[in-house]
């Protein structure tokens, strides 16, 4: 009880814990814990003081909090299109600014729309049925897994289809309305 000085007693003695739990206490001594102390030099295999520089094949976006482009960097998905322009703009702000992250998040949404539209001009258009994996609801006990277990996530799971399909439904509705309006104008 915190109202007196003693630490609450635990149910099992040290010997009982050792007998019950394989390996109980083998890392009791902090010296046996690999991340104690937090900062400690260990040989890493590096045979350089500063790594050789990777070739920069396009103007690589980087945090303004870096003095220079890091010697090694990822080359996946170079920025392109409107989302790419937004991302390059976002990198003008430091990581400490909300604008940096919020513009990047907005660019992610624009990127998704750009790529979905672009996919319709390819032989491999986006398919929301296969790409959401929703068919696994049938093979992986979607109903039995969810209901009757008092799962906390059921309270908001209904939002997921709206998040995935909502923008497309709105876009399709807007497209239909636009077509109707054009037809009506021609008719008039």
């Amino acid at each position, binding site marked *: 009880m915190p109202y007196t000085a003693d630490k609450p007693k635990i149910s*099992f003695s040290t010997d009982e814990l050792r007998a019950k739990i394989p390996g109980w206490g083998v890392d009791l001594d902090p010296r046996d814990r690999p991340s104690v102390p937090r900062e400690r030099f260990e040989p890493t295999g590096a045979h350089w003081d500063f790594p050789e520089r990777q070739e920069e094949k396009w103007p690589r976006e980087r945090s303004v909090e870096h003095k220079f482009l890091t*010697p090694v960097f990822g080359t996946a998905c170079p920025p392109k299109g409107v989302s790419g322009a937004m991302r390059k703009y976002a990198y003008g702000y430091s990581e400490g600014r909300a604008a940096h992250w919020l513009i990047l998040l907005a660019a992610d949404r624009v990127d998704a729309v750009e790529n979905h539209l672009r996919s319709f001009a390819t032989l491999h258009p986006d398919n929301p049925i296969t*790409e959401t994996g929703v068919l*696994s609801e049938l093979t992986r*006990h979607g109903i039995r*897994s969810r209901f009757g277990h008092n799962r906390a996530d059921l309270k908001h799971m209904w939002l997921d289809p709206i998040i995935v399909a909502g923008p497309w439904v709105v876009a399709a509705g807007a497209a239909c309305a636009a077509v109707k309006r054009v037809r009506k104008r021609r008719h008039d």
Partner: protein
Amino acid sequence: MLAMVYRGPYKVRAEEKYMPTIEHPNDAIVRVTLAAICGSDLHLYHGMMPDTRVGMTFGHEFIGVVDEVGSSVQNLKRGDRVMVPFNIYCGSCYFCARGLYSNCHNVNANATAVGGIYGYSHTCGGYDGGQAEYVRVPFADVGPSIIPDWMEDDDAVLCTDALATGYFGAQLGDIVEGDTVVVFGAGPVGLFAAKSAWLMGAGRVIVVDHLDYRLEKAHDFAHAQTYNFTEYDDIVVHLKRVTDYLGADVVIDAVGAEADGNFTQQVTAAKLKLQGGSPVALNWAIDSVRKGGTVSVVGAYGPIFSAVKFGDAMNKGLTLRMNQCPVKRQWPRLFEHIQNGYLKPSEVVTHRVPLEHIAEGYHMFSSKLDKCIKTLVVPSAE
């Protein structure tokens, strides 16, 4: 080659993609033999992590066989069976020289607040990940290790993140003999953190989640007392009650950005992306640990602000400890524990899916179908 590709929130597919190439003299190309989907991959999958680009391949838990090495690679050769820590790190910067491999300053051009991580958005460096047939592995002399002959693939792939992170989380708690340790989250990292707490001498380990099948696993696998927070009006008060109103000595947050338990927090964070993460588990940790206690955070959060109850942490005099795990530092000791039979990481594996069916794998894991705890991904390249 075949690779998992992100197509926007809640959408992924397997598609043919260019083969990775050597881009730096210390790169290696690894043919992936086994990968895993991590709980933190779901933050990307749900579109929560800024600068997650369509076309990116996720996957920071993988093992494989070296297919090609760059001109300066000395420690690996073609044909070596390797395990690759999720951290990409140079081994020589200010932070690596101090063992903080997850905070390397030479590998992430996009951000200084986080190191490099395979397949984890451009915020973590813009590297494609290992849910693919092949992957580029930078600093091949530093990160990867040859898998010991006695170690099975399923155990090895779990050492690349989940096991190491759980073990690291328990260390951050600075557990002393007889401590009461509460772990929020009964996913793989939480299960390993609970199990590791015993190795460090905990006197009592409690695991909290809302999924009964995971709590059963925590009881059987990690010998933990378990509580389903949906069964209590206020889980913090319940934890106070079961600790004689003192609170736990150490609380480990193994949930991170998509914590359930508060509708507003969950929706504003995971659905509307207005927070870097839903801090429900973190706030419960702050409130249920005793004054002067330690909160260890190994659940992943995004870089924007979250509504964390910092005043309580200050007024209670808490020690808050956290980081991405420097994986390779953990390996020698973890290997001993696996060999001695104290840890058997593959016991948390519940499913394996072929890479071709990656979308089903993500949906199942994200929706917690079929009592899913850990899903392995099996590429087919030979």
